[in-house]
């Protein structure tokens, strides 16, 4: 008994050190001690997506005890080289469940609740229960979705509604970690421009003078196949097709004295796969989970707000503060308060919008969550909503209700919270 308590303590020794003594960078108001450790252990966190194994292991070993994980994938044989919680016998089983069971067994006292499914299957009530969300998602779409959802949840009345989002992502030897405080800091949508689409090799390079083995594979895939096997639609899961492309690419590469075309590379190029690198995932997962630890406990300043990592040649990281975009369609679009006279008609209100300096909306359409107030186009909706122009605002909206206004003259939309004078 005594022995197990001692070894338990040993396991958390280093964590306790950080939590029980102030450091040079910690906030003046921060009080180290057991209260912080209690808080850490009771903090409910959600991990989502592909960096799951690393993130789950790190959270559990950082002292979090109430961890939830959501992932829609099942275990594939190709995961086993780096997703160390999975074994051959787990192939085909849901990742979330296997990972949760493994970590629970290995780290005593941790509770991990798995959900098998898409993050999009869950609603605001689900996300509301967590303190912090940590994501290692594998697509931009999923990131945008969770970002917009968390920003939409922020309610100025309720401080629990603001959920810090820690996002990590990797691609080959590159990766990034970022901290997003919904509505306060730059969000994923603000930063979308930074994800440049993968540069496509111009077809002329592929068709005329290839320089890299990949160019030869693209040639075999896009040009030779069309030439020789036009009526046979290319299927990247068909081994015979890949093999045909591989041999065609190999022949072309030899002709141009280019080395390096392999079957695996062929498969990667035609399926547009960038190999996942275990060490990159480990670095990024470590970075994101330590941000979660810092945010949850306040033991040290957290990342402000973007860390990029490049591991192709040596190891390089750079940290900077991504700025909020004022015209961000997700976070730059929060409702502004507007005092209005409820006895004004909707028509008068629309006219007054044209006079407001910041808006100068000439042809606005507008609605509340429930009602289409006025919609200029298409004609059927215009006819239907035209009678509203003569109605008083108090008969159309509630005091404090939000309206959203679009105007073709502006690329952004406006949200106002109408407060009755």
């Amino acid at each position, binding site marked *: 008994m005594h022995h197990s308590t001692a070894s338990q303590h040993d396991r958390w020794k280093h964590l306790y050190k950080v939590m029980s003594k102030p450091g040079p960078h910690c906030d003046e108001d921060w009080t180290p001690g057991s209260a912080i450790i209690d808080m850490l252990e009771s903090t409910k966190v959600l991990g989502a997506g592909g960096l799951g194994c690393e993130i789950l292991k790190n959270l559990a070993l950082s002292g979090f005890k109430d961890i939830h994980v959501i992932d829609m994938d099942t275990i594939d044989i190709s995961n086993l080289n780096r997703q160390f919680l999975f074994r051959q016998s787990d192939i085909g089983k849901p990742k979330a469940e296997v990972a949760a069971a493994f970590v629970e067994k290995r780290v005593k006292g941790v509770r991990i609740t798995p959900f098998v499914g898409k993050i999009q299957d869950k609603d605001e009530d689900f996300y509301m229960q967590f303190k912090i969300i940590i994501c290692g998602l594998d697509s931009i779409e999923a990131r945008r979705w969770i970002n917009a959802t968390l920003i939409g949840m922020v*309610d100025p009345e309720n401080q629990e509604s603001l959920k810090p989002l820690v996002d990590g992502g990797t691609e080959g030897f590159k990766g990034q970690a970022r901290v997003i405080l919904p509505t306060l800091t730059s969000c994923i949508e603000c930063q979308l421009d930074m994800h440049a689409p993968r540069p496509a090799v111009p077809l002329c390079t592929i068709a005329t003078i290839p320089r890299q083995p990949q160019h030869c594979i693209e040639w075999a895939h896009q040009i030779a196949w069309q030439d020789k096997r036009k009526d046979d639609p290319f299927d990247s899961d068909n081994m015979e097709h890949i093999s045909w492309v591989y041999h065609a690419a190999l022949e072309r590469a030899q002709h141009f004295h280019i080395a390096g075309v392999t079957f695996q590379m062929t498969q990667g190029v035609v399926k547009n796969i960038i190999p996942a690198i275990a060490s990159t995932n480990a670095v990024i997962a470590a970075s994101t989970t330590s941000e979660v630890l810092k945010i949850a406990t306040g033991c040290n300043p957290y990342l402000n707000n973007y860390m990029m990592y490049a591991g192709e040649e040596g190891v390089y990281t750079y940290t900077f503060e991504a700025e909020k975009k004022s015209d961000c369609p997700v976070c730059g679009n929060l409702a*502004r308060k507007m005092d209005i006279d409820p006895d004004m008609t909707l028509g008068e209100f629309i006219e007054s919008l044209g006079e407001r300096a910041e808006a100068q909306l000439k042809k606005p359409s507008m609605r509340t969550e429930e009602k289409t107030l006025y*919609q200029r186009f298409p004609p059927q*909706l215009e006819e239907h909503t035209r009678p509203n122009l003569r109605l008083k605002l108090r008969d159309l909206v509630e005091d404090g209700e939000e309206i959203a206004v679009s105007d073709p003259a502006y690329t952004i939309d406006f949200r106002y919270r109408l407060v009755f004078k």
Partner: protein
Amino acid sequence: MLKIWSMKQQQAQAENAESAAGNKKKKVTAAQLRVQRDLQELTLGNTMKMSFPNPDDILNFTLSIEPDEGMYKGGVFNFNFTVNQNFPHDPPKVKCTQKIYHPNIDLDGNVCLNILREDWKPVLNLNAVIVGMQFLFLEPNASDPLNKEAADDLRNNREAFKRNVRSSMAGGAVRGETFERVLR
């Protein structure tokens, strides 16, 4: 959890965006806002009309296409549009309400249009979709069929395909399948 909340309150004061006391009001969703904008920017021309069974619900509507040229000229084709709350990340769902003879529309009304499926991107808008729908009636496409028989007819014998289109639009049968009368 650090001073995140006090940061939020400072921001609220700075922007005068503090909330009125009381109940939380529903916010216009991102999907609604985007549809409101998309509707304003539609170009319907003479060949398309929209109707809204519930004008307060702009996420569900019907589009009627009346092609003024091509093989389907003279018909009126109705499509139900269902836009979900994940729009524009998800494409709208579009379904033909009539049983028609068309290589890219199956007998249940499912529509095969690249931008409604694999090529959908959030930068595309409703106008792109309705232009694509209109195009399906001007240039039915045999290479990516949903109605394989119709696609085979189009590929093998264009004249016979045209005759089939005419008779199906009049409510006739093609290869034993009876179609809905869609003539204006």
